[in-house]
């Protein structure tokens, strides 16, 4: 039986015999604790009538599964509970808190430090040179050796965990997502589409203005004619 390391006083970081590095700032319930950064989306479309059944199946389908033992992937993503990043079961539909659907987008990454990879490659090349009595290893074979070494080392790397909370108000179609980083937001919108079959439309100043003016029956054409002003007193593009 694998023992939990004595230095870990965070109970849930030792899972299945593996120590996970949890980035608390990342964070566990990041939107709901302390300070957080978030971007906003408008959910384009409405959920189907029986959405809870359908969404439970799809969320389970795309839940976080971590790295398979044989996998050499550097990244693993999926849904976990917003209340507990180690809960990816969703039998109790704990993602549903009317009128909200709330999930955490979990991203585990692992990598091999460049220096360590270089060292292990040199060691492997050295062994081959001795075993096969070679003075020189061709470039192609060195590349194969590097790929093989990376593949072996990545499986031993400690994953780094980050979670980003999503709060989707189904009644207003507004969604808050706990990251402003482009790559994370892109991965999130892709997984959201796969899971819910609904596209996310990013919120930005023009879109907020246009949506509100349209609701009020005001022509949005006036927005397109807005040109910035320079502070010498003239408005650029003023007729």
């Amino acid at each position: 039986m694998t023992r939990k390391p004595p230095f870990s006083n965070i109970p849930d970081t030792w899972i299945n015999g593996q120590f996970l590095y949890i980035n608390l700032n990342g964070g566990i319930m990041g939107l709901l604790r302390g300070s957080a950064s978030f971007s906003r989306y408008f959910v384009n479309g409405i959920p189907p009538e029986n959405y809870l059944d359908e969404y439970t199946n799809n969320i389970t389908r795309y839940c976080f599964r971590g790295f398979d033992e044989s996998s050499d992937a550097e990244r693993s993503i999926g849904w976990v509970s917003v209340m507990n990043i180690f809960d990816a079961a969703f039998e109790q539909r704990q993602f549903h808190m009317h009128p909200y659907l709330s999930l955490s987008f979990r991203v585990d990454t692992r990598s091999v430090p460049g220096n360590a990879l270089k060292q292990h490659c040199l060691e492997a090349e050295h062994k081959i040179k001795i075993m096969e009595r070679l003075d020189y290893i061709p470039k192609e074979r060195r590349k194969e050796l590097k790929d093989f070494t990376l593949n072996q080392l990545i499986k031993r790397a400690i994953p780094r965990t980050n979670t980003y909370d999503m709060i989707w108000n189904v009644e207003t179609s507004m969604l808050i997502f706990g990251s402003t980083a482009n790559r994370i937001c892109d991965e999130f919108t892709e997984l959201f589409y796969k899971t819910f079959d609904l596209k996310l439309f990013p919120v930005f100043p023009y879109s907020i203005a246009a949506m509100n003016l349209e609701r009020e029956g005001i022509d949005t054409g006036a927005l397109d004619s807005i040109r910035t002003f320079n502070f010498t007193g003239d408005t650029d593009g003023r007729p």
Partner: protein
Amino acid sequence: MDVLEKIEKTEAIGKDFLIWLWFRSETRNGILDIGDDLHVDILIDGKMTLENDETRDTVTYSGNNPLMKEARLALLENKKITKSAIKLIINEDDEYTFRLDSTWMNFRLFKTPRVIQDFKDDPEGLFYEKAGLIEKAITIMDSVFMYFIRLRISPEWERDELPALITWIKSGKNI
């Protein structure tokens, strides 16, 4: 036109909004009347990033100087605000702090007022309380933004607001 193209073409809206917000917060003690019986105070308070539209050079001010003199002078050089630290106080009680950016209107380093619910005792209660506070701040900032938009597309902008704004910017060299 795709989203990124639209954002680029309309980026002036967000930048002008942040300058106007600073102008209003300075000249009217930060008090904004956005209806719904809400008393909203907005203070531009802390770090601010400005950008030159032509060269795209950015400069960040720490906001330690209470008058933000350097940032005011940067406005005179036609630099635009791209990120600004904001303190939002609702009904003289609930205080939120965050940094708002002009491109996406994303909220960074967002802090809500102290919550009553405790995660250990009632995680769902905490969720509802936090979600409600976040939505409240967003709704109010959107209302303030729409107040600006309605003003910006009205004749009142050219007639009253813009001249007052330019006078305020020019007064920056005297502080």
